[in-house]
């Protein structure tokens, strides 16, 4: 039983090892290995979740047996274990669901290297979720940045490289600010482990003038992570990045990478600053305002987008606005709902990014709206899953998106602060209407009969599917069973999770509440 306490560390170490192993395998084997390995990780994380639920308290794994305040720690509670579990399941689904497009987008001799990156990314994600040391957070933050840039540029078209450069420049800016924030906090507190830092911070804040220095360091940290996760007004890199990446990468970048940054920020607020201190700082109100602006402006940009990928990417900006609004709102339910929204959005957005390329595939490989007309009729399964995700995004009951919006409204009422209640209600209403406008419009378009772009000739896809150099005359209409299954299984799993979060949201809320109770 006590052996389970090693599992969080295993998820990091084994991932690092796997990434080296994938370099030596061939492409197909690397994929199979990664899929099996992710299943194994899911089992490990599931065991950790079961263990912390059973014992009812979080445990700390002391690396190298140096006790706090020295050494390096990993900490596992219900919240961390649950997030790690959901992240891993989404990662597995993304790897499965985007496999066929990966064969098209990535040079065949380099596919194993793609899985090297995926395993490194897993290690970084897991470390950010488990770590209890702020500098370890910085190091794996950079590893996450590098690997996400890697999985972005594997698709060798010019625009991807440009998108990657822009993504990297902004991320480096974010990392630089984060590093400065960490250094400033370290110079103030003299610690790197989160709990000793919090003890020191509460002393500093109590001293005259102390709150200003803490606020300054925290503001720098927040701006750094805000840029990286796409907080308004730093969301403009999203459409290019998500729109040009291969579907697996787009799903991972939008559903997991940005969420890992947000969770790190959340962790810093709770465990480094302390939530009581955080609530007295002005940063909270600014985050609340920026979150609301992101919700509205993300949706407005999504309405103006001319292609489906841009629309989905801007809707990510809006959804991330919801999370920041929850963080800024405060109150017990505000934070719980912010975490719930992380889960709900990750589940929905990953499926959306796996689905839109399939709609494009039957529309002459074009993502423009006018070419997508009738694509839901040409690829029925993709049409159905897109519609389900759109319903969740708009906030139709039984889906996760609805529960998140409902809980945000209840949380705003619970705060009892009119300055929070009115903006939240207004923003929720406006954002829901705007979401409905662009998502339902797209659903209607893909189900309106018409050839759309289906007649556009797409030789790149055809040649990759048929492995021949002959120039085909028409676009392939049929798909093999294994091809369909590799999409259906992850799509069904993600939709199932979405419905679970919508129908049994109280289970998820209960888990998050228990997690937060042992998080502080």
């Amino acid at each position, binding site marked *: 039983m006590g052996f389970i306490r090693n599992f969080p560390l295993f998820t990091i170490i084994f991932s690092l090892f796997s990434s080296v192993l994938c370099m030596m395998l061939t492409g197909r084997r690397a994929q199979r290995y990664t899929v099996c390995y992710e299943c194994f990780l899911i089992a490990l994380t599931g065991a950790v979740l079961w263990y912390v639920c059973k014992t009812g308290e979080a445990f700390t794994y002391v690396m190298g047996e140096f006790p706090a305040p020295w050494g390096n720690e990993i900490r596992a509670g219900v919240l961390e274990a649950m997030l790690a579990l959901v992240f891993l399941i989404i990662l597995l689904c993304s790897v499965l669901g985007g496999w066929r497009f990966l064969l098209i987008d990535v040079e065949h001799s380099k596919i194993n290297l793609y899985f090297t990156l995926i395993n490194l990314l897993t290690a970084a994600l897991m470390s950010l979720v488990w770590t209890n040391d702020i500098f370890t957070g*910085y190091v794996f933050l950079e590893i996450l*940045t590098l690997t996400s840039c890697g999985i972005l540029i594997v698709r060798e078209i010019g625009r991807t490289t440009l998108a990657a450069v822009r993504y990297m420049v902004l991320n*480096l800016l974010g990392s*630089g600010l984060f590093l*400065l924030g960490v250094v*400033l906090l*370290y110079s103030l507190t003299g610690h790197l482990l989160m709990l000793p830092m919090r003890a020191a911070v509460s002393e500093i804040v109590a001293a005259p003038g102390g709150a200003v220095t803490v606020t300054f360091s925290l503001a720098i940290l927040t701006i750094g992570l805000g840029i990286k996760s796409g907080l308004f007004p730093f969301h403009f890199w999203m459409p290019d990045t998500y729109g040009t990446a291969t579907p697996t990468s787009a799903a991972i970048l939008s559903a997991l990478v940005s969420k890992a940054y947000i969770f790190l920020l959340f962790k810093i607020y709770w465990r480094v600053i302390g939530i009581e201190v955080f609530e007295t700082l002005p940063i909270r109100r600014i985050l609340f305002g920026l979150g609301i602006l992101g919700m509205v402006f993300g949706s407005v940009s999504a309405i103006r987008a001319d292609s489906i990928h841009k629309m989905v990417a801007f809707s990510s900006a809006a959804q991330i606005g919801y999370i920041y609004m929850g963080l800024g709102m405060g109150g017990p339910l505000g934070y719980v709902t912010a975490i719930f929204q992380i889960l709900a959005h990750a589940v929905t957005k990953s499926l959306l990014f796996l689905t839109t390329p399939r709609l494009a595939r039957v529309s002459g*490989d074009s*993502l423009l709206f006018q070419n997508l007309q009738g694509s839901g009729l040409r690829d029925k399964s993709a049409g159905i899953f897109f519609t389900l995700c759109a319903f969740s995004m708009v906030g139709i009951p039984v889906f996760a998106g609805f529960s998140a919006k409902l809980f945000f409204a209840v949380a705003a009422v619970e705060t009892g602060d009119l300055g929070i209640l009115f903006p939240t209600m207004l923003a929720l209403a406006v954002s829901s209407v705007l979401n409905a406008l662009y998502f339902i419009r797209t659903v209607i378009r893909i189900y309106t009969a018409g050839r759309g772009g289906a007649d556009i000739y797409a030789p790149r896809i055809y040649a990759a599917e048929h492995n021949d150099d002959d120039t085909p005359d028409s676009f392939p209409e049929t798909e093999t069973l294994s091809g369909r299954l590799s999409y259906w299984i992850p799509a069904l799993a993600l939709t199932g999770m979405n419905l679970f979060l919508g129908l049994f949201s109280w289970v998820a809320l209960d888990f998050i509440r228990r997690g937060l109770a042992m998080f502080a």
Partner: protein
Amino acid sequence: MKTVSALLANYEETAAIILFVIGLSMLLFHGNLIKKLIGMNIMDTGSFLFLASMGYIEGRKAPILVDGVQSAEAYINPVPAGLVLTGIVVSVSVTAVMLSLSIRLYRRYHTLNVDEFYLLSRHQLEDR
């Protein structure tokens, strides 16, 4: 006057922050990709200088026990130096990745100016 003397007293930290801001503005506002990278390195160096200056305490020795002196007062704090080392490794790897990206872009567009990339990429047929 008080502020100036405070800044002069902590001249290492002041220099570090000035370096950081120089690097930050280069990374943000320079059009040339290589200069952006140089800016990033200057920015990181600023942070490292801040850390390194924090670790050093005048009149104390390297933290290796000599003559059985065990008091912490006798030695400097070695942790910041360790952090700087880690940070340098991170910074080097990020620079390497960014340079390889720049090479790829230069081969394609024959320029390193970020604004020109966007102008050129609009004319490419494969970019949907």
